[in-house]
């Protein structure tokens, strides 16, 4: 069982580390997006106000659309987002229009630097920047490996209670094992929960078969579980769209005061128009929103989503636990810390694998060197890449076309470029230097922010801008964490070199000398 735990962890660990870091960052997805568009200032508007303002804008610009999605602002996003789908025209297929950000009060489009924002980390977390569906499948394989690794880890850990509080520093392999055990066992409920619920978030893709045992098509299952979507055809008859304010108020009354988070309007300005109001998910664990559908012309309630049974509720709660929308800021920071603990669990496991197999009196075998280099690339170089993404946001000119993709490229160029460069350095130095670079990169973010925007740390403190202040402080804390890692790596004793004695630079085993030693064995 210990053997299988090590293999499962090793093979999936590099990707799992990246999933943990980007997933942990995604707890603050809207906050990161707001930080990356410093031109925008959040304004507050009531749901009715924001919805009607958005609709007025859409009426003015594209009244003949097939569907309007209005994502209402909340205290985290601060802006209204709209997405409009044009009527399908077989003669001239319309390109997919991008999402727009609107002012919540006026409904006017907001101009800010184009960026993917927190969406980038979020999407990478489960798509791994690979084309659909390969990214999600790979993420799923890693997730099931993680689940099996958790189970086998618990089974294999004989002294799990006796060792519960054990953490010994500066004892080499034993310290790494203690660190791995501590980060894994002490937060075990979180790790098990996040892994299982993560699989559940994409269960429709990974395991649709139980649904198809009972329903001819998967859509029939979702209709039975969540209520059929109001997919009517347009009647072709024009009719004005009623103001949505009263519909929102009726929905809020039905939901005991909970505000809506999304409005979906089908066939606006048509006699068959429908307005679906979706409930906020920030107040409860179940992340599946209830919905009520009204007629867009008469304002009458047409249908509402069925109350979920125990199984559907369980799935909804599992989704909610993974997304963490229910968490208030304090609990959200706790989730963030727990996510970092998960990354620590994976990272210490990867390092432990190497440390355990490194022998003092034999040169490292090829697999060991490969794993160690992959560890450096996957664990030490990714943080610098993520910092580069944030730095690129401030350094790339705001008006440059295609800048959103440039920011994303920055992350991958720095991550993989640093990983490639690290191959030129001996392993121990590579750890120190890459982690040190990450520390410098993160520490630079508040500085660059102050130099390129008017929302630096001092200005934000004066303006009591909680988000920008905590962002800068978090960057400094992460820099300190990376610096701590670099310092710890520097304190490790220099590993014994297997180069011939006359080499002056003892730290770098030259390739030829390793081959000579291998032949001698």
């Amino acid at each position, binding site marked *: *069982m210990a053997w*299988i735990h090590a293999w499962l962890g090793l093979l999936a660990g590099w990707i799992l580390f990246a999933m943990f870091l980007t997933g942990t960052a995604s707890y603050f997805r809207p906050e990161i997006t707001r930080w990356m568009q410093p031109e925008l200032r959040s304004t507050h508007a009531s749901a009715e106000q924001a919805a009607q303002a958005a609709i007025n804008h859409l009426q003015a610009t594209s009244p003949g659309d097939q569907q309007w999605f209005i994502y209402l602002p909340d205290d985290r996003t601060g802006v209204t987002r709209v997405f409009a789908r044009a009527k399908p025209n077989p003669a001239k297929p319309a390109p997919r229009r991008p999402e727009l950000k609107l002012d919540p009060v006026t409904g006017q489009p907001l101009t800010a630097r184009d960026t993917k924002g927190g969406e980038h980390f979020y999407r990478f977390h489960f798509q791994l920047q690979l084309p659909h569906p390969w990214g999600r499948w790979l993420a799923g*394989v890693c997730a*099931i490996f993680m*689940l*099996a690794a958790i*189970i*086998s880890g618990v089974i294999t850990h004989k002294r799990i209670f006796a060792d519960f509080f054990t953490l010994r520093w500066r004892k080499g392999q034993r310290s790494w094992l203690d660190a791995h055990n501590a980060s894994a066992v002490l937060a075990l409920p979180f790790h098990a929960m996040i892994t*299982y619920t993560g*699989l*559940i978030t994409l*269960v429709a893709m*990974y*395991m*649709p*078969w*139980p*649904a*198809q*045992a*009972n*329903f*001819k098509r998967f859509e029939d*299952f979702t209709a*039975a*579980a969540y209520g059929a979507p109001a997919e009517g055809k347009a009647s072709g008859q024009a009719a004005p769209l009623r103001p949505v304010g009263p519909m929102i108020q009726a929905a809020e009354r039905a939901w005991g005061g909970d505000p809506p988070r999304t409005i979906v309007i089908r066939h606006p300005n048509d006699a068959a128009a429908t307005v679906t109001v979706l409930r906020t998910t920030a107040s409860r664990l179940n992340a599946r929103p209830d919905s009520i559908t009204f007629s867009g012309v008469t304002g009458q309630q047409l249908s509402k989503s069925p109350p979920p*049974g*125990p*199984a*559907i509720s*369980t*799935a909804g709660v*599992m989704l909610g636990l993974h997304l963490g929308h229910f968490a208030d800021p304090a609990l959200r920071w706790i989730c963030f810390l727990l996510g970092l603990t998960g990354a620590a669990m994976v990272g210490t496991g990867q390092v432990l694998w190497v440390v355990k197999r490194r022998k003092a009196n034999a040169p490292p075998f090829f697999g060991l060197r490969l794993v160690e280099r992959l560890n450096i690339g996957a664990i030490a170089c990714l943080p610098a890449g993520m910092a580069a993404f944030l730095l690129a946001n401030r350094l790339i000119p705001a008006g440059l076309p295609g800048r959103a993709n440039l920011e994303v490229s920055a992350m991958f160029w720095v991550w993989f470029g640093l990983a490639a460069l690290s191959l030129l350095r001996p392993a121990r130095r590579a750890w120190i230097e890459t982690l040190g670079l990450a520390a410098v990169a993160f520490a630079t973010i508040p500085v660059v922010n102050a130099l390129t925007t008017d929302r630096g740390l001092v200005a934000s403190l004066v303006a009591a801008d909680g988000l920008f202040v905590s962002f800068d402080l978090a960057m400094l804390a992460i820099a300190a964490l990376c610096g701590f890692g670099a310092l710890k790596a520097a304190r490790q004793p220099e590993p014994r070199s297997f180069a011939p004695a006359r080499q002056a630079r003892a730290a770098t085993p030259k390739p030829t000398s390793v081959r000579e030693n291998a032949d001698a064995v």
Partner: protein
Amino acid sequence: MGHDRQPRKMIAWHSAARMTARGLTALVGGYAAAAALSSLLARLLPGPPAEASAWGMIVSFALFAGLGLWAFHARRLAHVAAVLWGAALLAGGAVLLLGVRP
């Protein structure tokens, strides 16, 4: 000293091949068995069909992980393959024969 390196290498490859075979059986066979068994569960559980399907989907991953780990714990690979693929075929066959819930 150099003579017996050849047989050692072959043993290493042979055992690596066996481990890979067991890994693939665990991954693919385990997935098939978990999918088939959870589908059968969904088909047979009384109550609203959407609920039964949801329960099946929820437990499927625990089933997959458990079967996959067992695949490495059991001694003989032939035994493991027989159980996993047998379960997949029997349960899957039963689901197909029963057909979609009326």
